[in-house]
């Protein structure tokens, strides 16, 4: 808003002038000065709002008894300028005009509107807030916060029932044992994984673990011999994991994973809350170290995946998983010798095939 240090020429009307006279004056003039007789007299704000609402495009100047603390109100009601009283310090006017970064009400001026901003990328805003508030909290509190019914999220967890899966599932069992847990039954798992899935589910008292299988028709068309992994591992993952998961999670706006930063360099910057494509992803264990995982598993005497003691720190389908050597990252045994590091369920937009 313009700060005017000189007395302005032009049609000057008191804010005590009746609305119809103000409107008549506006119709006849392309500039109006509205004189406030007391800063407490807020009629000038409504008069400006009425004129702007009626499409008045002329110049509106506030004059008389107004405070720097009203700068923003004046501007947002449609004033272009304020005539400062002689000797007034313009600095507080500038400060007070810009003191708020956003506004709830639509009005004149270019302020950020909260109600619009919120819905341009609502999950990103939510994720930022949750990271600020719960990012440092312990995993169980974080899980409790996101599963608080007051937040109104529709949540499901994803678990591979792999080497470290027991930690997340254990936390879930303490917070909400009936949380839907999606297990991608690709048809290519180690038999030990399937046994472990049953054992852990029963032991933790999880009541809604869902085995999600690839669509039979899609499999028979794209991978009739069950060896697509040899020639096109991405396509194999797509048909066995990505598409089935998308279908399984349709309708959920929040998914909870057990991913951790230390697992590989791609996950090094993982935040506890991430937003993309209308889905909020929650990684309660993001900041956990391998030692913390081990300690937790030991302290709570959780059953271990049988392949762990054979040198498998990360376990997927059998054709694409091998044990790792000393010095390798935990996930180096996945798609070893290929560029591929992720199956894709955590990276792409999940769009149901149907």
């Amino acid at each position, binding site marked *: 808003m313009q700060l005017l240090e000189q007395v302005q020429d032009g049609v000057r009307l008191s804010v005590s002038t009746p*609305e119809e006279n103000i409107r008549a004056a506006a119709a006849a003039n392309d500039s109006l000065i509205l004189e406030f007789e007391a*800063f*407490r*007299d*807020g*009629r000038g*704000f*409504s*008069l400006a*709002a*009425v004129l702007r*609402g*009626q499409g008045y495009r002329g110049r509106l100047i506030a004059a008389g008894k107004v*405070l720097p*603390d*009203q700068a*923003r*109100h004046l501007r*947002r*009601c449609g004033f272009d300028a304020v005539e400062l009283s002689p000797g007034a*310090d313009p600095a*507080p006017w500038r*400060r*007070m005009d810009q*003191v*708020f*970064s*956003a*506004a*709830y*009400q*639509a*009005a004149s001026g270019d302020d950020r509107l*909260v*109600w*619009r*901003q*919120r*819905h341009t990328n*609502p999950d990103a*805003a*939510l994720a*930022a*807030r949750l990271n*600020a508030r719960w990012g440092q909290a312990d995993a169980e509190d974080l899980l409790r916060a996101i599963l608080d*019914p*007051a*937040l*109104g999220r529709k949540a499901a967890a994803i678990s591979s029932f792999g080497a470290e899966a027991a930690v997340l599932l254990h936390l879930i069992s303490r917070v909400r044992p009936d949380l839907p847990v999606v297990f991608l039954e690709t048809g290519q798992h180690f038999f030990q994984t399937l046994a472990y899935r049953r054992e852990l589910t029963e032991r933790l008292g999880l009541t809604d673990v869902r085995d999600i299988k690839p669509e039979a028709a899609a499999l028979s068309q794209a991978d009739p011999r069950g060896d697509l992994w040899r020639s096109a591992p991405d396509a194999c993952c797509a048909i066995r994991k990505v598409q089935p998961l998308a279908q399984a999670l349709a309708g959920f706006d929040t998914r909870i994973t057990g991913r951790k930063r230390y697992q590989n360099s791609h996950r090094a910057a993982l935040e506890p809350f991430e937003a993309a494509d209308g889905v909020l992803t929650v990684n309660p264990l993001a900041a956990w170290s391998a030692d913390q995982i081990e300690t937790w598993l030991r302290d709570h005497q959780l059953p271990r995946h049988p392949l762990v003691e054979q040198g498998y720190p990360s376990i997927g389908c059998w054709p694409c998983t091998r044990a790792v050597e000393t010095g390798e990252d935990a996930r180096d045994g996945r798609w070893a010798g290929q560029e591929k590091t992720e199956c894709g369920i955590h990276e792409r937009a999940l769009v149901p095939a149907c």
Partner: protein
Amino acid sequence: MYRYDEFDAALVRERIKEFSDQVDRRSSGALTEDEFKPLRLMNGVYLQLHAYMLRVAVPYGVMNSCQMRRLAHVARTYDKGYGHFTTRTNIQFNWPALQDLPAVLSDLAEVEMHAIQTSGNCIRNVTTDVFAGVAADEIEDPRPWCEIVRQWSTIHPEFSFLPRKFKIAIVGAPKDRAAIRTHDVGLQIVRGEDGQTAFRVFVGGGQGRLPHIAQEIAPAVRGQSLLAYLTAILRAYNLLGRRDNIHKARIKILVAAIGIDAFRDEVERQFAILRHEDLRIPDEELARIQAYFTPPPFNDLPATSPAYDAARRLNPEFARFTRSNLREHKQAGYGAVIVSLKPIGGVPGDITAAQMDVVADLAARFSFDEVRASYEQNLVLPHVRLEDVHAVWSRLREAGLATANADLATDIIACPGLDYCSLANARSIPVAQALSRQLADAALLEKLGPVRINISGCINACGHHHVGHIGVLGVDRKGEEYYQITVGGSPDEQAALGEIVGRSLPAEEVAPAIARALDRYLEIRNDGELFIDTVRRLGADPFRTAIYELTDAAA
């Protein structure tokens, strides 16, 4: 309940920054006291008789345990260890030091609380039914709409310098548990012709020196048009309301002066020329806010609890508490527990820091982390399993919060009066205390049934005396404190102003006179007839006779 996102949090932080700037400019002399006063008032800071007072907003009365604990912290750290819940469901701290206020506001901001617009000539804290989301007669939960109005009215560019303060209340049921007809604008959720949410709108209610019951201005404003309609009302008021006399500046005076029909015409004229596209509540924002108020994950419970029934059989004191302070819940197996801030002989609405901690613990453990403040100056644990009510009661009882008097004669609404307030003519608290002691007998109290007794220390009527079934108003008679008594007022959907029964009484005669009026009620009531219904049937005369019986005999 609603949680802040980063926009809400930023706004509160920026408001603190703005206020600090204003305090600095007042210190340097850049702002005069006259200029500073409305700015500090809009941040909840009053100058009272003995000290500054900070009024903290509790939006539509809803808090979680963390917020309640923070209020306890404020009371302990910056005040004398207690706070006072008001009829606007806010909480006041009476003794903070001016230099501590920025720290208090920062502490509050950390738990999503503030003191914005708890005073001043702006739109104040919106209030609602304390049993929102609990009561079975509810058409729709009013709290999401309260939150929408809260956000829309916060730092409103056009309506921050109104002729006078402006209060809005919203209910979601035909039964009015928020006294909406005593508000500048009262909103009642109804179903529109299309089956969608609509609002029956009342305007021009208010208490104070010239009390008025609000009149209906619109039968069903569509939910999407609510903010446009409110804008039209406020704009008409801002342009036409009187500014020459503080006692005649409320919207009630404008509506009474030009008549409801002329005022409606003015509102409709403004409504017609508004930019509706700017005022329509975005569907996704409504949905986002409503999601915060989905019911908590109740268990499927039978409607009765054998443990609860047994406890009632075995313990008459507990049974009495449940009869007076437990309200039905629409979810089977749950109830809403009223935490009485009206101990016999106590100060209505006052609560100590230790008691706040107890209520916070109980809310966290037994009521889905929720506690509500009612305009009657009590607290409510809204969602307690019947089988837990005994445990809740035991803990409340230890803390002095289990007086079995909700809505009964000792559930007195009272303003702080001349003990604190610079406007008061007379003290309210000692009169409330004397009356509370006079009517302390629990059996008598229960026999009397619901009686609303409201006490104000001056004509500004913060203690709602006009709409008490029995009202008491402190007046100054040549430097002496005297009290005028009214009978027949009512705050609900049958709202009415009480009738003044006669000359005012000295303080010590108030409690005995009211006790005689209540005795008279017991003599003349029909079977099962409530006090207010007896007054409506017979008028004020029998009570007038009882109130002046002794003084007349002496004269």
